[in-house]
């Protein structure tokens, strides 16, 4: 049986969660590997959440927010755009490949984009194989 990755999706309430919702109501199909947690804004995402997810068995984490300039909270996504890449750079030190963490933008009208991003992410993580964290 092929490897089915577990992916945590952290979506902002206004754009990406609504975009995921639209994908659903439009009956678009996407990889069932994603499990979604909603936050009000991608700016709420603490690096600790992501590390926690990897520790709890996630093989990948996808953070989605509004497109730059379209944040419901004006500039929360800019904060995410700084934090997430920084964390990505540090991941290899924990023995986690950078590709396992992805930040992307999905607006409320982009159900199709959400589907694409999720499918791409699933494929990327599938290629990487299960996450094996070093012991200790």
């Amino acid at each position, binding site marked *: 049986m092929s490897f089915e990755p577990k992916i945590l999706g952290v979506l902002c309430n206004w754009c990406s969660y609504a975009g995921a919702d639209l994908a659903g109501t439009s009956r678009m199909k996407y990889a069932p590997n994603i499990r979604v947690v909603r936050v*009000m804004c991608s700016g709420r995402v603490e690096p600790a959440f992501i590390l926690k997810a990897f520790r709890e068995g996630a093989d990948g984490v996808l953070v989605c927010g509004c497109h730059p300039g379209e944040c419901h909270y004006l500039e929360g996504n800019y*904060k995410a755009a700084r934090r997430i890449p920084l964390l990505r750079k540090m991941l290899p030190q924990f023995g986690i490949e950078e590709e396992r963490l992805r930040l992307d933008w999905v607006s409320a009208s982009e159900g199709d984009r959400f589907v694409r991003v999720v499918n791409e992410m699933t494929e990327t993580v599938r290629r990487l194989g299960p996450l094996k964290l070093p012991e200790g």
Partner: protein
Amino acid sequence: MASVRSHENITLLSYSEVTEVSGYAGNFRVKVRKKPRYVDSTKCTGCGTCQEKCPIQVTSEFEAGLARRKAIYIPFPQAVPNVPVIDPAHCTYLLKGKCGLCKRVCEAAAIDYTQKEETVEIECGNIILATGFEPFDPTPMVEFGYGRYPNVITAIQFERMSNASGPTGGKILLRDGRAPQSVAILHCVGSRDERYHKYCSRVCCMYSLKFAHLLHEKLPGCEVFQLYIDMRCAGSGYEEFYERVQREGVNFIRGRAAEVTDIAEGESERGKLIVIVEDTLIRRRRRLPVDMVVLSTALAPQADAGEVARIFSISRKADGFFLEKHPKLDPIATSTDGIFIAGCCQSPKDIPDTVAQAAAAAARVLALISRGIVETESATACIDEKRCGGCKTCLGMCPYKAITFDEPAKVARINEALCKGCGTCAAACPSGAITSRHFTAEEIMSEIEGVLL
């Protein structure tokens, strides 16, 4: 405008600019810079002598370059208050201390060169922004020859010409003073165009039809061509007007003009402007020799819309117009409570839609005033003052300036009326002193554990 000015509950500050907005719904403090007019509006009788005598002539902005104005001038005939201003960029007295003619001729002694700009502060509960649009400048579209051929004009210029109080007294004229015998009206100039503005400007089809109608009315026998991609005449009575203009004998050509040139091919084109277009319904390229070309230019966001959005803490859409709270369910409010938008600053729209939106914005404000209380977000952030280390990291995070620093206590404080609950501060707080209600770290962590089981 005049009745707005005379209303007892309305204070009109014209020739003024908002420079700073602080506070929140119910408690805004607005700083307004009043520019000096150099004319005392309480003394001026509006006799107009100063304008007559002023020796300086510059191009009139209001007449879209079709007329000249003086350095002391009333911007447009219906201006409120109907008092002149001195243009400090051109007045030789203000620039070099020479002339002073207007002061000498003013019988009411209203001219005051020493006026300085002043800043007033206003307290208000709600704000409605209605900053409008800016007409698209077609100069970069060199294919249409605007600026190169004098009889290629913009919609605003046509509008001024057709106005009875305009530079030609309502006559449609070529630059040499003749009346045009044929006119081409080019739709979608700068609209529906990836190179300039992707959106449809919504009003051009209808104003172009109006232009055709006016041309037929003012110049019977004038040949009018409408070059369009799609006729968008949605609205009460609009399709009917389209039909009426069709009956008037306007030539509708389905195709967007590719080019305007003066290079004639044959006698019939000599001395004319030639519009080159594919008539897509017969799939043939056509050359239309005309006397005048009117460019139906796009409605663009104001050049300083970004600056205004920053001052009022609201957002803009990708196209540059102000972002409404919800495109369908709340096109009047913005993401900042107590700040509303109306008219073309939100998106291009026609007069009925603007009036409706303006009335709606006024009603929303009145509803808030009559209730007397505002509802705040429940999912706000709060600070555990005992744990706050006073590092001020959160201050820079908050897009709503909801966090202030209490210097004596050395702790940060959150104004819950301003907080929208994005949680960015909670994510940044190094000591974990900030809790994002309903989205606490514990809640999210448990949720992560749960979904990954």
